[in-house]
C-alpha cells in the first residue's frame, strides 16, 4: 500500500520534449511508471521515445489517454500556467518539479487548485515515489525499496541521503514524498501525515523538515493529536544564520520564527523521535518498530 501514487497512476509529463522533461520521462518509464502521455504545445502528434504520444494541450492528452496524474518540468516562467492547465483539465494530482516559480504566482495558483479539488505536490520538489510501483518526479529509483515506512521531506538530496540509509539497512518505504522547499507549496506535512496515518501499508513515518516557516510546528501538533504511528523527525539548518535564504526559497528564519530549535522543541512535545544526524534514522526506526518492519 502507499499514498497518492501506485500501479494505477497514469502519468502525463508536461514539458516532455524539453531537456529535463525528456531525461526524467525516460527514467520514469525505465522504473516502470505508466507514462501514458506527454504535452508540449506545438509538438502534438509526435511520439516520445517512439511510443508515448505527445499532445498540444493537457485537455487533449486526458481525453485520449485517461491520464490521472501530471508531472511538470517546464521552465519557471511557464510553470504556474502549466499547473493551471493540468488542474483545469481535471487532473486530480499534479506534481510540479520546477524550481524558481515566483511566490506571487503560487499564491494565485493555489485558490484555483483548491477550488477544483485537486492536489498539487511542490513546486520545487523532487516528486514522489511508491517503490516498485510508480515514480513521479526525480527521486532516484535505485535507492528506494518497497516496505512500510512513509517518508515526507521538504528537501531533495537530503531525502535521498535518508532513503539510502533506510534501503541499505533493509528498511523499505511505502511512499516517499518530497513536498518542496518553497514558501508556498500545494501539499504540506500535515497532508502527508494524514495520508500515511490512514494508509494501512505504512507502519512508521519519517519527517524531514528544515528551517523557515511553521509547517513543522503545525505538523507536530497534528502528530500529537491524530497520528498513532511512530514518527521520526529531522530538521536541517541548525547552524543557519538568521534572515538568510538557505538555497530553498522557503528556508529562511524570519526574526525569531522558523528556527531549528523551535521546530525540534515542537517535535519533542509531540513525541516525535528526533534524528540528530541523518544516519540516526535507522536506529530510531528499529527501536520503534523492532524486527517487524524489516520486510
Amino acid at each position, binding site marked *: 500500500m502507499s499514498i497518492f501514487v501506485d500501479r494505477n497512476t497514469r502519468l502525463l509529463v508536461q514539458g516532455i520534449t524539453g531537456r*529535463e522533461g525528456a*531525461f526524467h520521462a525516460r527514467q520514469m518509464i525505465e522504473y516502470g511508471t505508466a507514462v501514458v502521455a506527454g504535452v508540449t504545445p506545438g509538438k502534438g502528434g509526435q511520439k516520445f521515445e517512439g511510443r508515448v504520444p505527445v499532445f498540444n494541450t493537457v485537455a487533449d492528452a486526458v481525453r485520449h489517454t485517461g491520464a490521472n496524474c501530471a508531472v511538470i518540468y517546464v521552465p*519557471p*516562467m511557464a510553470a504556474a500556467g502549466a499547473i493551471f492547465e493540468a488542474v483545469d483539465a481535471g487532473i486530480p494530482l499534479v506534481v510540479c518539479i520546477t*524550481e*524558481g*516559480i*515566483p*511566490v*506571487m504566482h*503560487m*499564491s*494565485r495558483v*493555489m*485558490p*484555483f487548485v483548491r477550488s477544483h479539488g485537486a492536489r498539487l505536490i511542490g513546486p520545487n520538489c*523532487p516528486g514522489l515515489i511508491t517503490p516498485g510501483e510508480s515514480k513521479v518526479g*526525480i*527521486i*532516484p529509483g535505485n*535507492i528506494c525499496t518497497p516496505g512500510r515506512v512513509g517518508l515526507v*521531506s*521538504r*528537501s*531533495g*538530496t*537530503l*531525502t*535521498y*541521503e535518508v532513503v*539510502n540509509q533506510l534501503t541499505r539497512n533493509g528498511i523499505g518505504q511505502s511512499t516517499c514524498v518530497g513536498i518542496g*522547499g518553497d*514558501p*508556498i507549496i500545494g501539499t504540506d506535512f500535515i497532508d502527508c501525515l494524514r495520508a500515511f496515518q490512514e494508509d494501512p501499508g505504512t507502519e512508521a513515518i519519517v519527517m*524531514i523538515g*528544515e*528551517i523557515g*516557516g*511553521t*509547517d513543522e510546528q503545525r505538523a507536530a501538533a497534528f502528530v500529537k493529536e491524530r497520528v498513532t504511528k511512530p514518527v521520526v523527525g*529531522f530538521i*536541517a*539548518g*541548525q*547552524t*543557519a*544564520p538568521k534572515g*538568510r*535564504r*538557505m*538555497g530553498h*526559497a*522557503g*528556508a529562511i528564519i524570519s*526574526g*525569531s520564527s522558523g528556527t*531549528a530549535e523551535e521546530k525540534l522543541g515542537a517535535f519533542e512535545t509531540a513525541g516525535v523521535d528526533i534524528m540528530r*544526524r*541523518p*544516519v540516526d534514522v535507522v536506529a530510531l526506526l528499529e527501536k520503534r518498530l523492532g524486527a517487524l518492519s524489516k520486510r
Partner: protein
Amino acid sequence: MNLHEYQARALLKTAGIPMLDGDVASTPTEAEAIARRLGGKVVIKAQVHAGGRGKAGGVKLARNTAEALDHATQILGMQIKGLTVNKVLVVPAADIATESYLGLVMDRESQAPVFMVSSAGGVDIEEVAAKTPEKIVRLAVDPTYGLLPHQALTLGFSLYRDFNQVKAAARIMEQLYGVFTGNGCSLAEINPLVTTPAGQVLALDAKIVIDDNELFWRPELGLMRDDSAEEPSEAAARRANLSFIKLEGNVGCVVNGAGLAMATMDLVKYYGGEPANFLDIGGSSSPEKVINALKIITTDPRVRAILFNIFGGITRTDDVANGIVEATRQFKVKVPIVIRLTGTNESEAIRILEKVGMTALSDMDEAVQRVVQLARKAA
C-alpha cells in the same frame, strides 16, 4: 533581493503614495545641496542593507545646511555591520503627530499577501508582535480578487479615527498593494506611516524586498541590485549561479541540494567543527560550477579544510569529480579536500579521482568527521 530605502521610496512614489520630498547623495556636497533645497532641517540616512542604522550612527538629524554637510561627511564611508556606506538619503525632518506601522508580506501559512497594520509604529514591529500581538491587525488578501475596497477601509479604521485620515490610509494600502504585486515583492513596508500635526498622512520610511524568482521577469528591478552592499564572495557566487552564504567557521562545504547542504553544516557542527559557508551547487551541476565553487571558498583565508558532499541523483558525480580535478589543475588548493560522493556514475567518478591520486568516501558521517579533524589539525 533587498532594495535600499531610496529605491523603495522611488517605487512608492511612482505609485502615488504621499511622501516627503527627498533625494539620494553619494558625496557630502551633494547631500548639502539637497539639504539646502529642502530648507536646511533634514535627516541624513545611511543607505546600507543592515538593521539598526540609527544605533550605529547612520541616521542623523541636521538642523541646518552646515550640519547636513557635517553629518553626510561622517556617514558616507562609514562601516555599518561590515558594509560601507556609499550613499545617503536626505529628507526633510518631518513634524510628527502619530506613527504607525504598515507592512505587506507574502505569508506562507495563508498562502497570500497579508497586511500587518499597527498604530504602534516607528519601533521594531517584531517587538510589538512578540509583546503586544493584539496591537497588530492582520488581514490576508485573496490575490485572485486583490485588496477589496472595504478591506482597505477596515485597515484604515484600525489606524485612525478621523475619516479623512482613514480614507488617506486606505488609499495608501491600495497603492502599497499595487507596488507589492506590480513588483513581485515578498515584503513591502512603510514604517513609520505618520500623521503630521496638520493631519496629513505620509510614508516616512520604506522597505522593500523583491522575490528573487521575479527578477527573471523584471530585469529593470535587477538593475537596482547594489553589489557593493553585499559580501564580495556572495556577490561573486551569485554571478556564478551558486547559492552561497558566508559564515564564520573554517570548514568549507560544497554540497548539492539546499537541504543536504544545511544538514552537512549541521553535521560539521555536531562533530565539533564550524562550517565556513553554505554552498549549494544545484541539481545539474557542470564541472564549471565546481571550479567556481572552489575558487570562491578558497578565497576565504579562514578555511582550513574543504568538504565535498555529493549525493548523485540528477547530479552526475563524475561531473563533480571532473570539476575537482580541473580546478586543482587550474589553481593550487592549499587546504586538504575531503570528498564524499555516492549515486549516479559513482564508480566513474572514483576512477577520475584516483587517476590524479585523490580518493573519495561514500559515507557522509565518515567524511564529515574526517574533514573536521583535518581542519582542527590545520588550525
